[in-house]
């Protein structure tokens, strides 16, 4: 297996935690709310899923519980930031720190323990294709994530729910004036984003690298937030961005296999360097951000 095949085969799985968390955050931001607690919500989801799977509860229950736990944590954010109209940036950071703290607390006795991941499911025929065949051998969670990506895209492209979320993000006052419950819809969006971050954390701890180590989310929540901007709040671009980051984070491993003389620390910091570079490039084009950006992002809504 050469480096290209290795990266193609692993890219989607590596991208999945980014993609789940970023799509959740995209929905939150489209509704006009900035929740910076993604990293902490992922960490909480990760530890909850790990504990359940470790004790034999199974992956399905693990994912559901992780989603629920992070959604509850995000509702705490919603109460403070939307209910009491506290500053969203500060609240998000605080909730994120809380999530990381909780994950360290719950995970203390599970440090370095392992579980088994999920089996890979191959698409018959397609997986036989040389070079790109690896793309079609993925575990069930990856397939479900791809379906969710398609679903979210369709919701924003075709449904009234998507339309209402976009309208609230652009002009909450006008949306209120025509009779939409702005706060309730924003709370729902935040909870959805929380659940998605929980799934993302669960994928990281019980499927992608099925072992528990404190701090294992390792900044992936922050990259997910950057991905939302990187993808200019569009599902398709966020998907491509997540794949890029998935591929970049595998490059380090691939390069080690080819025995290139590059320090491993530099290789493992590649995703973060790429994040900074790409964000810089995107931000240079203000037209792009303005056209797709969310006008009321981060602003509290008062009637």
């Amino acid at each position, binding site marked *: 297996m050469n480096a290209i095949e290795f990266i193609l085969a692993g890219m989607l799985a590596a991208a999945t935690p980014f993609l789940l968390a970023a799509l959740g955050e995209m929905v939150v931001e489209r509704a006009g709310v900035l929740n910076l607690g993604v990293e902490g919500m992922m960490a909480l989801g990760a530890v909850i899923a790990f504990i359940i799977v470790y004790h034999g509860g199974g992956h399905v229950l693990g994912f559901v519980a992780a989603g629920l736990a992070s959604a509850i944590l995000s509702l705490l954010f919603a109460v403070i930031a939307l209910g009491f109209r506290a500053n969203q940036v500060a609240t998000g950071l605080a909730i994120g720190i809380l999530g990381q703290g909780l994950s360290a607390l719950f995970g203390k006795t599970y440090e370095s323990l392992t579980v088994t991941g999920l089996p890979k499911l191959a698409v018959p025929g397609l997986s036989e294709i040389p070079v790109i065949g690896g793309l079609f051998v993925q575990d069930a969670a990856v397939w479900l994530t791809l379906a969710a990506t398609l679903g979210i895209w369709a919701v924003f492209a075709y449904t009234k729910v998507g339309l209402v979320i976009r309208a609230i993000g652009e*002009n909450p006052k006008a949306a209120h*004036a025509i*009779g939409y419950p702005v706060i309730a819809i924003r709370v729902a969006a935040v909870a959805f984003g929380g659940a998605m971050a929980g799934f993302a954390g669960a994928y990281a701890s019980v499927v992608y690298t099925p072992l528990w180590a404190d701090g294992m989310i390792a900044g992936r929540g922050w990259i997910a937030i950057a991905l939302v901007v990187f993808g200019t709040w569009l599902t398709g671009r966020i998907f491509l961005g997540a794949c890029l980051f998935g591929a970049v984070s595998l490059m380090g491993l691939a390069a080690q296999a080819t025995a290139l003389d590059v320090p491993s620390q530099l290789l493992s910091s590649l995703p973060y360097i790429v994040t900074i570079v790409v964000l810089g490039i995107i931000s240079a084009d203000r037209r792009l951000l303005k*056209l797709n950006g969310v006008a009321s992002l981060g602003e509290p809504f008062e009637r």
Partner: protein
Amino acid sequence: MTAPLLSLRGISKSYGEVRANQGVDLDVAPRSIHAILGENGAGKSTLMKLIYGVEQPDDGTVAWQGEILSLASPAEARRKGIGMVFQHFSLFETLTVVENIQLVVQGRKADLIDRVKALGRDFGLEVDPLADVHALSVGERQRVEIIRCLMTDPKLLILDEPTSVLPPQSVGKLFETLRRLRDGGVSILFISHKLDEIRAICDRATILRAGRVTGNVDPREHDAHDLARMMIGRDMPEPMPALPRSGGEKQLEIVGLDYRPDDPFAVPLSNISLTVRAGEILGIAGISGNGQSELSALISGETRLPREATDRIFMMGQDVGTFGAAARRRLGFAFVPEDRLGRGAVPEMSLVLNSLLTAHPLGLKRHGLVDRAKAAAFTKDCIRQYDVRTPGPEAEAGALSGGNLQKFIVGREIMLAPRLLFVAQPTWGVDIGAASAIRRRLVALRNEGMAILVISEELEELFELCDFIQVLYHGTLSDPLVTRDTRPEEIGRYMIGAHSAAAKALA
């Protein structure tokens, strides 16, 4: 007389100390275009909010088709058959026309597109259902708002100052639409302070002054003079006569300026040229959104030109294209921006501190520190001279009404004794008496030799003030027209671009 569709009795509403409505009675007949006439601050908007369910009255009753009604929300009002088109539109700019309508009306997209087209044909409200709202002109946006209201089948349609955003030609078209709606069985509440319009279209007028009803008449039986007296309680003040002058020094000159903004929603400017001389007032007419904010920012120095664009903007003879706002002010330039809160004044700061923002060079500081006594004296002077209604110089700017804050900002800038004064929308939201005082002051300053540039949407205002008028349309500026040789209809043609189209057809 038939039973009224809507009937208010003894409606009162107070906000703290301010009594916005006191004992208002109002009857709107079926199939009627009923005017609510009054100055800014007379309580028109409050009354409409009460009818539309945005706010609840403290006292009094509302009867709708004979039944007593208490509305908790706009959604409920819409269900009863009351629709409202706001002055500042409540459309979503990043969505298409039909998406905006989908948010309010149930139905499949394809059906809604057909209904939009059908309403457009029936009532003269043509608009492309699939266009993005941010790409539409102001008149088209208004049509979308009206269509959106009509799709909920209202029996009463409230229009808040609908003509304030339209050029003269489109006003005629709107009136035609309103007449057709009335004939189709919809009553219309038409809020305005423009007397001629009310006499042209309304069959009933209720006049408000300081929260009370001061008249309930058939506007076709009264002349504008009578209506004005009921509205402001006295005769209209006479305008200040302008002394003929010419040939002053060029204080502002813009030569062939092109500008492409970064912001995709902003208007690019092309080949802008204008000259303002000492002792002259130049007015820039046009419907807002045709490049006014971009041009204002370029003149004020908020937007600087790139280093390579030389010899485009001159002030007092100097090339100032790359100068910032402060450097331009040091040359003797003063500026009243269009948005009072945030650009003209800091809402959270006191009037004294707001004076310091631009008036600090007038000796309001000593050894680099603020001289509080002098700053307070300056502020008091400004409050007195410009009749600013406020508890005192320590009041927060944001606590003043829009009109009073405008008087304060205009006063502050005039007291700087600039050589070049630029005022965007000088009397926007200011009541008639104060507006006329501001206009008289501007003419007096012109007579003393100040160069003044005014951007305004109000044609009557420009005709009263200006020596020359240029019209801004789609980011291009017409040649200067001598005001006394020009009729408003000609300006109106430029405002909708009909003039340039005709010129192109000839060429």
